[in-house]
């Protein structure tokens, strides 16, 4: 469905996206573009949504080059970053124009507007001017315009920025429903927790480079050489620390009250040994908490490694 073959994007002298190669298969599902500001997420989105041509390499979306390609643009919905709308227009009127620019007209257009407003829950408030709407409402209208023409691919750039927690949850639910309905969704964010909740596939970008791709577990596989932090709680934390040092897998250790924080080089061998020791009564553990098996930690490791 989407393939990049050493595609890069330059803004004059500035490299927005280094030559990048990856493929996303056809079918529904959500793919997260993850990375800090300036990582190249928006550059990648602009290539995929046909806004900018790649500076080198090749971009294929739905089998064709998307830049200024109406046949492909008719199958893509884009929700760009930011809170910008044409001044002085009302939601429904603007949606009508966007629908017409997507080739819809007459009853089909009106039906599409109602359907899209229904999906985003804005049926009763679309008559308002943009400056009378809350940011969350404007975000929903922006999502509605991208859904008018039933796109096969929906691209959202930082859609959660500035939304309150309730609006974020609602937007996530909407995106999940759309993905379940067969829409392929690409969503970018630098908020790691949100992406981790939302996506089943992640592309990790940093400084214009694609660092890793896969789900959280697959990315974690890439990190065998990186330590994993574990909190081992015990009444005698020093005894636990001594045992851990004896295993020869530690790269870091610090003691806190009632617990030892271990940085373990290879958890695949360390954890089974620890389990055996606990069962054998050699290790008086009361609790084990992995501190960094979430996406934040993966991101920290990878970006630190490439910085």
């Amino acid at each position, binding site marked *: 469905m989407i393939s990049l073959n050493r595609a890069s994007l330059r803004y004059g002298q500035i490299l927005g996206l280094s030559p990048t190669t990856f493929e996303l298969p056809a079918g529904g599902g959500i793919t997260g573009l993850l990375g800090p500001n300036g990582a190249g997420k928006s550059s990648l989105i602009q290539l995929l949504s046909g*806004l900018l041509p790649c500076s080198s390499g090749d971009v294929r979306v739905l089998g064709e080059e998307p830049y200024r390609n109406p046949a492909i643009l008719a199958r893509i919905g884009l929700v760009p970053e930011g809170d910008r709308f*044409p001044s002085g*227009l009302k939601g429904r*009127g603007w949606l009508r124009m966007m629908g017409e*620019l997507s*080739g819809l007209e007459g009853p089909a257009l009106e039906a599409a507007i109602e359907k899209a407003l229904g999906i985003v829950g804005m049926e009763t408030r679309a008559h308002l001017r943009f400056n009378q709407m809350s940011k969350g409402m404007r975000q929903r209208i*922006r999502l509605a315009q991208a859904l008018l023409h*039933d796109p096969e691919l929906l691209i959202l750039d930082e859609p959660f920025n500035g939304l309150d927690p309730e609006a974020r949850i609602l937007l996530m639910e909407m995106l999940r429903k759309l993905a379940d309905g067969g829409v392929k969704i690409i969503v970018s964010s630098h908020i790691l927790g949100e992406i981790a909740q939302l996506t089943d596939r992640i592309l990790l970008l940093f400084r214009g480079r694609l660092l890793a791709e896969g789900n959280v577990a697959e990315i974690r596989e890439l990190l065998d050489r990186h330590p994993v932090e574990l909190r081992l709680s015990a009444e005698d934390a020093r005894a636990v620390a001594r045992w851990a040092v004896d295993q020869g897998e530690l790269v870091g250790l610090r003691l806190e009250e009632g617990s030892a924080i271990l940085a373990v080089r290879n958890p695949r061998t360390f954890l089974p040994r620890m389990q055996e020791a606990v069962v054998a009564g050699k290790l008086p553990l009361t609790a084990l908490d992995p501190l960094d098996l979430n996406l934040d930690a993966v991101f920290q490791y990878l970006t630190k490694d490439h910085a």
Partner: protein
Amino acid sequence: MSAAVIPTPLQTAKAVFKGYLPRVLQARGWVLAGLPLVPVGIIMLVAIVMKAQGERVPPGLAVEVFHKALAQYFLPIMALVAAPAGIREDIEQRTIPLMLARPATVWALPFGKGLLWYGWGVLWLAFACLGLVAIGGSFEALPRMVGSLASAYWAELAFMTLLGLVFKRGSLWGALYLFVWDRAIWILPGNLQRLTFAHYVENISGTKSSVVNASHMLAQTQVVTPTLVAALVLFLAGCVFWALAGWRLQATPIGLAGADSEG
């Protein structure tokens, strides 16, 4: 999934025209509407006062106002006010990517939005010309007055739209052209006069500003272009400028940051 078809250039222009229609009823639209009415309104008041005092309104007053106020100053100001509200506004507000991401015909976008401001401006220019008739202008000359202003506004608005897409300070270059070069028509020799909008306004309206006479130093003999040819030239010039503006937008990659749009 997607059942959308690709809109034609006409559908694209129509969608933008309709979509932005409410904009003309907002502040900039009323400023545009007021511009041609201001000089005519002032002169109408003066004429009323003169009549009340038993004085005769000078017979050439309407023609003077038409050329010296409307055609020379207020028409270019209207183009300068309306052009930035066209597609340039979407570029500056960074709302253009939303339209460029649709399968619409990119080159038709400037024309669709420009047509809206053209139609609105012509409506008020026509009212202003009616006002000129009320202060003694010839009713027979009304179609030619409206026609000349409408033709010139067509070309000047397209010209300003094009400059706005080519240069970061398009309005400045446009203002220089309209207020310096165009005003120099009476000292321009021969065919150079044909590179001014004022030349065509004079030839379509059938009247000339009294600015040019033999007593002026540097004054040149004013060349003549037949009325229909003059109207055709302005119409075609406008078409060319709209086409170039469309081509410029089509050929310019504009991303979400909008930086690439700047000249």
